[in-house]
């Protein structure tokens, strides 16, 4: 499990949009959406696509938590 305290690297030419804070928030939103989709009682379609959403969010979170601040 990532603790979200990955090593900070010198900023350099790292694109602003790919900074850790923004990307982690995006990954968190995707995980939260996947989680709600998995347990919601309304539509089977949302349940069907929940795992892909969760997986994408989790893998993204693990990767972006290593990005520089």
């Amino acid at each position, binding site marked *: 499990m990532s603790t979200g305290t990955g090593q900070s690297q010198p900023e350099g030419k790292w694109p602003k949009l790919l900074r850790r804070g923004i990307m982690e928030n995006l990954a968190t939103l995707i995980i939260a959406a996947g989680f709600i989709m998995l347990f919601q009682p309304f539509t089977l379609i949302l349940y*069907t696509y929940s795992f892909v959403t*969760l997986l994408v969010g989790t893998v993204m979170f693990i990767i972006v938590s290593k990005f520089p601040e």
Partner: protein
Amino acid sequence: MPNNPPSILDRSADKAAALTPARMSRSIKGLSDRAVAWWFIAPTIILLLAINIFPLIWAVKLSFTNYRANRLNAEVKDVGLRNYERILTDPDIWQAMQATAHFVFWTILLQTLIGFALAYLIDRKFRGHAFWTTVILIPMMLSPAVVGNFWRFLYQPQIGLFNYIVTFFTGAEPSSFQMLGSVDLAPWAIVIVDTWMWTPYVMLICLAGLRSIPDYIYEAAEVDRASNWRRFWSITLPMALPFIMLAVLFRGIENFKMFDMVMLLTGGGPGSTTEVASITLKREAFEKWRTGYSSAFAIILFVAVFGLANIYVKALNRVKQR
């Protein structure tokens, strides 16, 4: 420098050094500190790999096959993503997920509210508070098997104490409702038992949080003539929040895996109203023997809990930094 007699530790170290075979002693002397450290942690890492990481990787591998653990000689075919596709389009599994969500949401909400309230009361040192703390902690020390069995008796419609207590407050006939046999009441019956059993655990963690708040902060607030309500919202709650969040994380992960207590109380019934994900998983794996299919289901649950734990740890770090 005074010549001190060797301590017990020194003597033991000398004895151990004398007992070490000369050949081994020579090879250890040539090792760096880092290498010696690796030698010390190697058994733990090997054990962790063998009992945690290897089964996880094996389960991922099995989730792409039609493997059945009761047919060892049958040909194992690679089925690609078919197991995942079946699980994610199965209305019964979807129903199990909803039962799990109901159980996890309500148990965590109730345990956090009641647990924090109890911790807040126990933190005010009154006469006999140590005794009451011990009494409150008793349920969490019991085995889930014991708890499941005696709550079955408490929920008996004819002789169960629970129905009589409800009768006392509502006036309804004790035998007019069945907590474990009714489709509407059974999901709440398991929520009540889990809350009864695990609220003391949440209380204990919250109590540690409340006891860690230094007195001088309250004294400063008193000097500023802050009201009790203001002190609670501005000091107590924010400072105890990391502990509350930790308790929620621990209980959340545990309740996603809840099996024993629910199995003993309702066995997933009536129908499949209380069939939480772990019970469905057990049935697929060890009653229907669809090992590949159940591995895929286990991986889905793992990713869900892992993803949630990631978000949660991030939130916890933010709260701690404040």
